């Protein structure tokens, strides 16, 4: 319903600048995820959209209309907080209904809408409980119901799953995705968990140190990282990244071995490849010969790691593969799937 524009936003707390010259357009009905490590400015950016913080500089607009001066009450947004922010002295029903009460919705409609929202998150049997009588997962669902009881311009979600245990998180994630598709409201979601970002987003904005490093669909971000930070942040396990130098010919040296992989030019590079783009192979076909550091069973596959130039290199292997620490590890890196990043700036080198 709403298009959000952030135009050259700066946010400083005294000396510390947490968001730097941020420009971003969030489309109608989009599910945009801000992804980044803690302290990267993603929550601050969301709070500025909510109206809980005010930008030091720049413009925030909903549908082209500047809203910098509006308080959170006047922006018609709904937010799910990391620790839910439920009202302790109100029952589940009163919690969910509070936004309606503030809008003076008539009793019959109030009851109907509260029940509908509660049913959406399967909390309709617990309407008369107090928050302290609920489990973590139930509290999270109450917070979710409170945000969907009205149809706001934007949904804001600040790490809503980070306080749930792993199993619940998967269920709640599916629930949020289903809800957002059903409700068709622009959603902004903050997380540091790249799996959440990949699964939920229509677009992901990867942030670090107050700057958006890259914005794109999950696929783009995964397949085409624009710099080594994005590459290191997306994917589980993270992309293998090694600072390498080349021979005069341009062939890459890794752990004092010639890998037979050609760098784009002679010099220093950061070389990246994903664990699934590396194969175990015969000694004579290997790009790199090393030994197993750890070996992990994951069920559907296995992971072998090696210590290469002081960093872990991860290789994905078949599910029936078995190795032990210290075993010889011969791996073949497919040059097609190697990403090259500028050693100095971390920027991706792209063939012209």
């Amino acid at each position, binding site marked *: 319903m709403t298009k959000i524009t952030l135009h050259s936003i700066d946010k400083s707390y005294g000396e510390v600048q947490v968001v730097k010259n941020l420009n971003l357009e969030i489309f109608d009905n989009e599910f945009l995820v801000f992804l980044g490590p803690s302290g990267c400015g993603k929550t601050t950016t969301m709070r500025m959209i909510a109206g809980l913080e005010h930008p030091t500089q720049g413009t925030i607009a909903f549908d082209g209309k500047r809203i910098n001066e509006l308080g959170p*009450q006047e922006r018609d947004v709904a937010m799910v907080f990391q*620790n839910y922010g439920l009202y302790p002295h109100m029952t589940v029903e009163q919690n969910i209904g*509070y936004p309606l009460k503030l809008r003076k919705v008539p009793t019959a409609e109030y009851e109907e809408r509260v029940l509908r929202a509660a049913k959406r998150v399967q909390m309709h049997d617990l309407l008369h409980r107090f928050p302290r009588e609920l489990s973590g997962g139930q*509290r999270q669902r109450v917070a979710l119901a409170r945000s969907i009881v009205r149809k706001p311009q934007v949904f804001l979600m600040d790490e809503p799953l980070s306080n749930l245990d792993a199993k619940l998180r998967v269920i709640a994630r599916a629930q949020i995705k289903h809800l957002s598709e059903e409700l068709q409201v622009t959603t902004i979601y903050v997380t540091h968990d790249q799996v959440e970002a990949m699964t939920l987003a229509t677009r992901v904005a990867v942030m670090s140190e107050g700057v958006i490093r890259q914005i794109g669909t999950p696929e783009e971000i995964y397949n085409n990282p624009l710099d080594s930070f994005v590459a290191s942040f997306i994917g589980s396990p993270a992309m293998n990244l090694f600072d390498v130098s080349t021979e005069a010919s341009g062939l890459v040296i890794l752990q004092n071995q010639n890998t037979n992989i050609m760098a784009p030019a002679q010099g220093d590079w950061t070389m990246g490849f994903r664990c699934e783009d590396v194969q175990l192979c015969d000694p004579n076909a290997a790009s790199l010969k090393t030994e197993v550091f750890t070996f992990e069973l994951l069920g559907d596959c296995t992971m072998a790691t090696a210590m290469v130039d002081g960093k872990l290199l991860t290789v994905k292997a078949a599910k029936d593969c078995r190795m032990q620490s210290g075993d010889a590890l011969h791996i073949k890196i497919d040059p097609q799937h190697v990403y090259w990043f500028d050693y100095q700036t971390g920027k991706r080198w792209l063939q012209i």
Partner: protein
Amino acid sequence: MTGAVTSIPGYQPTLKSRLWSMTQQTLILLLISSIVLPILWMCITAFKWPRDVYSLNSAFWFEPTLTNMVTVFQHPWNLGSKIINSIAVASGAVALAIPMATLAAYAFSRYEFRFKKTIFLTVIASQFLPGAVVVLPYFLMFKELGLLDTRSALILINLSIVLPYAIWMIKGFIDAVPIEIEESALVDGAPRWRVLLEIVVPAAIPGIITAAIFSFTLTWNEFLFALILTKQDALTLPIGLIGFRTDRGDLWELMAAGGILITAPMFILSLMVHRQFIGSLTAGSVR
């Protein structure tokens, strides 16, 4: 009492540990007696005939009477009007102090403004000033205003005594209210005054009630200012009590009866409220 120690199976208390625990119990008993005995004495004396008050023979065995309780309400003591004054002054002070303190505490807790720390410390520090120092300026001030011997003057004075404590207590409780529930309410569409009234106050209600009771007690027992600033119309209970020191000597049995009248309401009030508000209400709001 030693049972608790000896009853542990296989535990043989040494002579030293026995002596030590006996010493401890004696000290505890002494401490308790120093608090309880005067109250006990008051409760007994209030129901004695004047002739029994000083007699050792009837220290504990005496013929009880309610005469004292009746006498204190009669001329010339008239404790009735003093009770009404005390109730009016204490209720008035609390009714003004609590909303004011809540607003101030909220501001100190949640807003940033210039000289915040200094102002807060000044408010608290105003309590370190002995009342005797300011009582004369107050006397002159109220005389100018024509407020001497009025309940309004006492309410104002007690307000100034009680407010700093109330602000400080309530601020502690508001500090403990998670900021997220306020932000939730703001985002849900609540104006600031509704956030305060519907979210913060209910969440901090144990603290607010505690502060109210504390303020009421402080005002109820206030002596110095009431003594100097009142004469006959606005006399409060504590001042009524010293009326029992007369030319004919101290009328202990009447003073004890008055003492019960002062203590009992406070005792009942704190019992009632204590039962209702144990534990924090904010449990479960976040995470």
